[in-house]
């Protein structure tokens, strides 16, 4: 066993010994159970799971949307950096998606920023029939391989994502907003049926800003409403 595998094994062991490991082999997640027909898989960004996200997950469950919340940097003992998301084992994510699909609910994955990477890798590894049952909402996804000043952007290639339905939630106040068309084109070229919505007057990570605006604070408190609205308007339900 090499050092990386040993570290991963020890990290998994620690979590398995800890409280509430949901399923062996799956990333540690918190379950907000609900009786409704929708299941939302909430994948936090590299800064980890925040209190407003947990609040929103609880509110979604109270409104009938079962929510599984995962913090991948903590689950896999990774530094809180966007690129850490690239190190999340795809087979674990595939197992997680399959466990969700087995619940016989409409499964929607909600991934934030670079957390889109392990989610899309896993979606690409699913069978086409499984992938067609999945909906994915990506909040300001970071799918760059190269994003250097003066250089053309390059995006990750996930292989075939044919049949996958994706809705991108893009805050207007983001350096990525002018680049959104290129990102959408890249996803469409990989077979994604992609749509997007611009979130006006919001910045990336509006719920965890050091100096939030009044509007951002209000939107943080009602983040569950935003997600419900997007789910309903999108029609992926």
């Amino acid at each position, binding site marked *: 066993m090499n050092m990386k595998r040993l570290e991963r094994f020890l*990290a998994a062991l620690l979590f398995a010994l800890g409280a509430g490991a949901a399923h062996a082999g799956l990333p540690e997640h918190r379950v907000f159970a609900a009786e409704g027909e929708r299941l939302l898989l909430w994948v936090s960004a590299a800064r980890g799971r925040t209190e407003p996200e947990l609040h929103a997950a609880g509110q979604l469950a109270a409104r009938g949307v079962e929510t599984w919340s995962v913090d991948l*940097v903590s689950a896999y003992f990774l*530094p*809180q*950096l966007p690129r850490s998301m690239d190190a999340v084992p795809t087979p674990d994510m595939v197992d997680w998606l399959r466990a969700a699909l087995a619940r016989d609910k409409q499964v929607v994955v909600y991934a934030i920023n670079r957390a889109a990477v392990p989610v899309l890798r896993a979606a690409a590894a699913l069978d086409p029939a499984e992938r067609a049952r999945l909906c994915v909402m990506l909040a300001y996804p970071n799918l760059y391989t190269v994003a250097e*000043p003066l250089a053309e952007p390059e995006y990750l290639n996930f292989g075939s994502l044919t049949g996958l339905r994706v809705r991108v939630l893009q805050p207007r106040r983001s*350096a990525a907003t002018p680049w959104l068309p290129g990102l959408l084109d890249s996803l469409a070229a990989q077979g994604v049926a992609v749509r997007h919505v611009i979130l006006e007057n919001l910045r990336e990570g509006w719920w965890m800003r050091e100096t939030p605006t009044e509007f951002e604070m209000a939107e943080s408190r009602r983040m569950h409403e935003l997600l419900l609205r997007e789910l309903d308007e999108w029609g992926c339900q």
Partner: protein
Amino acid sequence: MKPGMLGMIAGVLLAGAVQAAGFEARPATPAPDLLAQDLAGATKTLADYRGKVVLLNFWASWCPPCLREMPSMERLRVKMTGRPLAVVALDSAETRAEVDAFLAKMQVGFPILLDPDGSNTKRWKVFALPTTFLLDASGRIRYVLTGPTEWDEGEALTKIEALLAEAAAAQAR
């Protein structure tokens, strides 16, 4: 210690290393086109600054690091009065009203250019804010900085002074 805590510590250490990267030197790269209106509605291009060292800063009013470095850009402008340096700040993909609202709170003496449709931001391939380009007096890109700095001191001032000295030497030849 919890694994999450260890991850956080590693993250902080690694994030510090990224920030320390600082100015990126470029081998006298030709600059993309700049075509933007100033607050008076006049169209500006790089030709308007030919013969001067140019500090071209891409910013937005919603970006805290951008706002943190602006006072130092203003101090630099004042410090360099009478010398061939142009400090230019291009607002990325915001409306005129948003820029005006910001300038009502922070007054600056350097020109503000508008890029409401983000076309300049895309031509210059700016993916993070602030991003600043230092151009030599021939209009070529010599340094790129992603992230904020104190422009009137330290490494930033040293690099600007070097470009000014280079321009002066070329003019003397």
